[in-house]
Each structure stands twice: as structure tokens, then as C-alpha cells.
């Protein structure tokens, strides 16, 4: 088990390293330069800044220097656009992203579970088909478009919810429950839209595995023993359908993080996604690299966590490790 864990962690680290390398190379290969930095400067100033940021050195050297300082000194460089250490930019933005992603995952799970259970109870009926069809439609809609429609509907047409930001204007002085309520009101729209991304896939998978579980012998036994239909579904069938769900979640996490780049921008959510979006637009190499490392680590950790959770849930998988 320990060997397996070590192997997986080593693999994960290697993956992050490869990701960073590819992003570094791609970033410099894309035509364009850090315009945010060098737009109107005169030649001497450009030279000075290019030296200051080390952009005059060969690529492999820039990469080596970045790796060294990132790993040894935990210095991820200075953002060209924000004129602040990249780590600080990301640390400031991370809580917002964490809150949004967590809420989105919870909403995603709740909706998918609810939808799948509802649909399985009515397998083959109109309601089931409705759930399946809406899953398919939701899956094919770009999350950005969904967000726009949500804004136009719920803060434009029916002005119930704010169209963006984490707090009401100038809410720094508000404390306690009113502040929490204000935050939650702002969270609803972006988290729901983000939670809906990839929702179709999860609901279909969960439905399929629930249906499969329901056709098993132990379900017939449970029913024969007189267990209520709810108990059969929620206790006996659901528990055994969770294994694939955990796996799917592991794969959904990257999608949620990617989606958060667009959703954060659309909803003015001051998270890592928005910072990264600004960084990409202005060719802010250190910021883009830092953001990539952060989301790379999160994605890899998410997948690893999902795999481990699966092991915990399904003892049958364990012997295969030996």
C-alpha cells in the first residue's frame, strides 16, 4: 500500500513537472510578448525591464532559474501585471476560488444524486427521459453561455441575485451573519452555473450504475426481506453505485477548475481563474506559470484523492495493488 502510494505521488509530481514544462514552452512559443509591461516604453526602458525580468536570457536558462527559485526559495517570480509576488497574488485569490469550487462541487453532487435517484425511480417513464434529455442538453451547453443566460435571467429579468462579485459594494464594514448571507447570495449564481458544468455526464453515469445495482441479487433479497423501496434505493443500491461516482468526480474536478476561469471572469469573482485570465491576456509569464502549477497540483491531487477514496470504498480493488 505504501509503495503504491509513493508510486502514485511520484507519478503525480512528474505530471505536474511535465505540465509546467509544456506550459512554459507553449507560452513562449505563442506569438506575442508581455505587452502589459512593454507597451509604450522607450528602448532603454524596455531593455531595463527585459533584464529585470530575465527575459533576455535563453529559454532553458529562464526555465532553470524559475524552477530553482520556485522549488528552493518558494519564490514564484513577480507578476508583470500586478507588480507583486506571484505567490501573493495567488494566495489572495485562492480562498475565493476554493469557496466557489467547493460550493460548485456540492451543488453538482446534490443535483446529480437527486436527478439520478428521481430518474431511476421512474426508469423508462417520461420523467426519466426528461432527466436524461436535460442532462444531454446541459452537457452540450458552453458554461460561459449558461452563465450569461443565468445573469440575464436572475439578475436582469428577475432581479433576485447579484450578477457578480463576492460581496455587495463597500461591504467590508458588515460583519457576522449579514456578511455571510451577503456572501451566499453572491455565491449562488456562479456556483450553480459552475456546478452544472459536466453535470450531465455525472447524472447519466450515476443513473446507469444505480440501474445496474438495482438488478443485482442482493437488491432482490433486500426487497424480499421487506425493505422499503426508499431503503433499497438509498442504502443498498446507492452505496454500491458510489464507486464510479468518486471516479467521475476525480475527472470532473479539472473541468470545474477550467470552467472557473471563465465563470470567475464572467461573474467578476476575484479568484485564481480571473487572475490567470488577466495574466494570459497580458503575457504575464510568471503569473501564468504559477497559476498553472497551482491548478495542476489541484487537479492531480484531486485525481489521486479520488483513486484513494475509491480504494477505501471498494475493498475488491485492493488486492490488485499487490
Amino acid at each position, binding site marked *: 500500500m505504501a509503495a503504491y502510494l509513493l508510486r502514485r505521488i511520484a507519478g503525480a509530481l512528474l505530471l505536474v513537472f511535465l505540465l509546467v514544462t509544456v506550459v512554459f514552452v507553449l507560452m513562449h512559443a*505563442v*506569438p*506575442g*510578448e508581455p*505587452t*502589459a*509591461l*512593454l*507597451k*509604450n*516604453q*522607450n*528602448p*532603454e*526602458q*524596455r531593455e*531595463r*525591464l527585459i533584464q*529585470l525580468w530575465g527575459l533576455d536570457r535563453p529559454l532553458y536558462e529562464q526555465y532553470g532559474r524559475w524552477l530553482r527559485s520556485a522549488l528552493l526559495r518558494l519564490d514564484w517570480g*513577480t507578476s508583470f*501585471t*500586478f*507588480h*507583486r*509576488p506571484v505567490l*501573493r497574488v495567488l494566495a*489572495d*485569490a485562492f480562498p475565493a476560488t476554493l469557496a466557489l469550487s467547493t460550493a460548485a462541487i456540492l451543488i453538482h453532487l446534490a443535483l446529480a444524486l437527486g436527478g439520478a435517484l428521481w430518474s431511476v425511480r421512474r426508469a423508462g417513464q417520461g420523467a426519466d427521459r426528461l432527466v436524461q434529455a436535460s442532462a444531454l442538453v446541459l452537457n452540450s451547453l458552453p458554461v460561459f453561455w449558461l452563465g*450569461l443566460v443565468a*445573469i*440575464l435571467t436572475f*439578475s*436582469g429579468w428577475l*432581479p433576485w441575485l*447579484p*450578477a*457578480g*462579485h*463576492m*460581496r*455587495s*459594494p*463597500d461591504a*467590508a464594514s458588515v460583519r457576522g451573519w449579514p456578511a455571510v448571507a451577503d456572501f451566499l447570495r453572491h455565491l449562488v449564481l456562479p456556483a450553480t452555473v459552475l456546478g452544472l458544468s459536466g453535470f450531465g455526464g455525472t447524472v447519466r453515469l450515476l443513473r446507469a450504475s444505480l440501474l445496474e445495482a438495482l438488478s443485482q441479487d442482493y437488491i432482490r433479497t433486500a426487497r424480499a426481506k421487506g425493505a422499503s423501496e426508499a431503503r433499497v434505493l438509498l442504502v443498498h443500491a446507492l452505496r454500491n453505485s458510489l464507486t464510479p461516482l468518486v471516479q467521475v468526480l476525480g475527472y470532473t474536478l479539472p473541468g470545474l477548475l477550467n470552467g472557473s476561469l471563465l465563470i470567475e*471572469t*464572467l*461573474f*467578476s469573482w*476575484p479568484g485564481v481563474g*480571473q*487572475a490567470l*485570465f*488577466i495574466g494570459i491576456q497580458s*503575457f504575464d509569464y510568471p503569473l501564468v506559470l504559477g497559476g498553472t502549477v497551482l491548478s495542476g497540483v489541484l487537479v492531480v491531487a484531486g485525481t489521486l484523492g479520488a483513486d484513494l477514496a475509491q480504494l477505501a470504498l471498494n475493498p475488491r480493488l485492493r488486492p490488485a495493488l499487490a
Partner: protein
Amino acid sequence: MKQAAWKRPIAALSGGVLGFAWLLLAACGGGSAPAAPTPVPAPAAENPVAGGRVVVGVTADIGSINPYSTLSTTVTQEIASVLFRQLLRENPDYTDHPPTFGPDLAESWEISPDGLTVTFHLQKDALWSDGTPIDAEDIRYTWQAQTNPEVAWDSSQFKRFIRDVEVVDKATVKFHLSRRTANPLLQINEGQILPRHLWSQLPFARWHSNDDWFVEHLATSGPYTVESWARQQELVLAPNPHFRSPHPPYLDKVVIRVVPEVSSLVAEFLADNLDVVFGITPSDVKRIEAQPSLGVVSWLSRSFAFVAWNTRRELFHSPAARRALTLAIDRESLVEAIYGRYGKLSNSLIISDVWAYDRSLKPWPYDPAKAREILAAEGFRDIDGDGILDRGGKPFRFELATNSGNPQRQDALILIQQQLRKVGVDAQLRFVAFNPLMEQADRGEFDALLARWTMPTDLDLSFALATESIGRAQNIFGYSSPQMDRLLEKTRNAATLEEFHQGLLEVQQLVHQDLPLTLLYEAHDLGAYHRRVHGLQPNALRRFWQIEDWWRSP
């Protein structure tokens, strides 16, 4: 983007654009019925009331509150102008003559007869928001920051002719210039004065990596100071207790909210979460004007859109061919279709409401027949009967590019393509991401492209037209004319405003004849406000013009 080697700013609009700035996004949207642009809201009949809060929505993030260590974007400059005062106040009266100046931190000034020394007498009772007196040392320190290579301020060329800044006494400061120029006040005045007693503690070399420091050590001289700043979210401004001139600001608080997406910005405005918004598009106007409690303001910006011809290409080498292409484009209906009442036909690199604009220029008409005639004279014939002109066995076919993600420019390109097709010219459209397109333009690797630039505030057009600017500054056209170079040189070295003006007129005439670019339209900038907010006077210099006058009905 490469930079011209030599810049000499002379009388113009201020607001710190040197050279032509590329505009990524422009307002997009619908052609509404033509009407006069909405003027600045009429002054309220009621008397201003003190107190209250106004929430302003902007689309661009606030880079820094230090105007010198960050890119001079519109929003950064606006914030700087709210927080810090300048030596003089530049008036937005540039329509008939170069802008005039009024007192700000300096209450009076005089220029020596030889034009080489300018002396400023500072207001004696002006204080920073922390109570420290504003004195001549602050002025000298600011000049040091502006010209320091480690700071690398992107408008430092404005200060090129300032040899030294001498502190005579606490309230008197002398600027020594290395040569006589047409309007030295413009160069000296550019940029806000910084609090030396605080910011000099951080060495210039560390300005680019310690942006938080400036917020933590802040004293302001403008009407407001920073109460709190959540980056990428909002900047909360509170009145500067020591700002008195001409009166303390009326509002208790100004909140500047960053909303990167225009659609979200408008939705938040319509939902009454924002009191004032800037950067909306013509297509939003209808929805906003449908609500009686909301109003729209528009003002002519300093930007213009055009088609750049790469004159290094054989097809666009001769001025006659470029004239034919210009005549073949129905620019009037293009402006109408794209901008409706918020656009205006453009004829010069100098915006039409600026004093130096050549009002004698006759716009090129839409005349496809004449265009065909010229092209025939240039040797273009449709030999193979495919409807496309040919010369030397090659069809008149080229790539017409613009940046992707801007629906309005893409619409314009499609219209131009259709119109050119009518005279037998085949323009193939290409949509390229903004950054790569800029690079291709710099390297001359394009045929023709549609772009939008902001006019340089110093009105020096050599950036785009001088031979020496090819591949170095923004002469993306590859346009080289000895006559033009002479004119530009003469204008740049003008010692008087009359010479400068005359030079600019001649330059505009020559561009109009040579047409390295076909000018399309000038666009209005748009903003909207809730009618409970009064005193807004946005103009091409500042959207937050005299923000101390803003007030809110109770």
C-alpha cells in the same frame, strides 16, 4: 511594440498617450437611428448635497495606485487623477486651440523669455491627506521617479527636455529645459505629484515588485484617498480631509467596482447595483434608455478605426491603387451600420474635434465607378472573367485581417469585403488574436488590416508616418515618403505653436493624398448613470473629471 527613438511632445491633449495606442476592444453593436450624440448631462438645477455613496462600475482591472510603475491604462490614469493632483489643471478646451492650463498645486507660474526656464509658485497651504505639507521637494522627487530607468514609466518621454528641477525654496520650483519647445507646460505638467515623504522610502528598483507597499504607505493630494482596496474587486475611496480646492468632495464614499465582462456590467447596472458605468456599448443603450431613471452619456474619444495598407506589397504600393480602394469603400454606411449615432466618419489621424484637425479636408466619397477607372488605369483587368481584376497574371486578391473576438470589427470587415468585391477586388478575411496580430503588424507580415488606435496626446504623428518608424515604432504601413519625413521633422522642431499647427495641417493633407491608411470612423465612448447622481462631466481627458463635483440626491 517597438518604440520610436525620438519623441518630442508638443501642445496637445494630455492624459499620457505617447505614440498611437492600439485598442483591443471597442464598443460593438447596433445601428440605432441617427441623432446627435448624447451630451454631458445638464447641470442639475438643485444645489449639491453633501453625503452619500456612489458605486462606479469599470471593466478594466485597476493595475496600481502608483501611476508610474504600471501600464498607463485608462482606469489607472483615472484613479491616479482622483488620488493625486498635478502642478496645473489642464482644461478640456482643446477644440479651438491647444488646451489651456489653470492653477492646481501651483498657484502661478512664469516662463522665462528664452523659453528655457519655467518657475512654479506652489500653494502654500496645500497638505497631503496625512497632514504633511506639499512642497517643492515633492515636485522634484516626482520628476526623478518619472525619469528613473528602474521605474520605466511608459510616458517618460514627456520629460525628455527637462534638464533639471531646482528647488528654490519650499514653495518655489524651477524647471530647466534643454531646449525651447512650443508648449513646455504640457510636458512639465504631465503626471501626478507623488508623496515624497512616504514613497521615497522604497528604492525605485523595488517599485515593480512591491505594489502593496504603495497602498500601505499612502497619502493623497486629490479629493479622495483610499479607504480599502480588494484587488480585482473594488477600490473604496473616502474624502481626503485636507482637500479644499475648490471645495471638499461632496460624496462620503466612491466605490469603484471591477466588472470585467461588459454584459455583467450592464446587468449589474440595470439591477441597480451600480450607480455609474463606463465602457458600455451602443447595443446596451436602448435597454438603458428604456428606464426613465437612467441616463446615457457619450463623448468623442480619442480613437479612430482604419484599414492599414501594407505599402510594401505590390498591390498597395501605388497611392493611386490605395485611393481606388478608399473610394470603393462606402465609409458613411459602414459607420452608420456599425456605430449608429455613436460613430463619426474619420478623415484624419487627428480627431475631428481637436484644434489641430484640418477642417479643410474633403472626405473621400464612395465612388465605385471612379475606383474602377483608377484601377483600370493602374493596369488591372478582369482577364479570366471570374469577376476579379488581374494584373500580370495575378488576381487582385489579398488578406484583410483584424483581431478576433470583436464582433463589430468583424462586421465591418465583412461589409468592406462585399464593397470591394463590387469593384473586382477579392479581400479574404482573417481573424487573428490581438497580440499575434500586433506582432505581425510590427513585422510587416500582413496585407491589410483593420485596427483602432488612440491618437497620441502630443499630436506627433511621426510614430506612424516617419520612415524611421518602419519596424521600430508604429509605421506598420511601411510608408516612406521623403516629403512626409521633411514635414514631420519640421513639425517636431517647431518652436512656436503657429509653426507646429502649420506643420500638422500639411502632414494631414499629405496623408489624405497618399493614403497609407483608409480612415473609417471615430467612435464615442459611452457611459451611463442613475439620475440620482449629479455632476458627471466625462470628457476625452478624464471620465472622472472633477469628481469632487459629483453628488447624489438624498
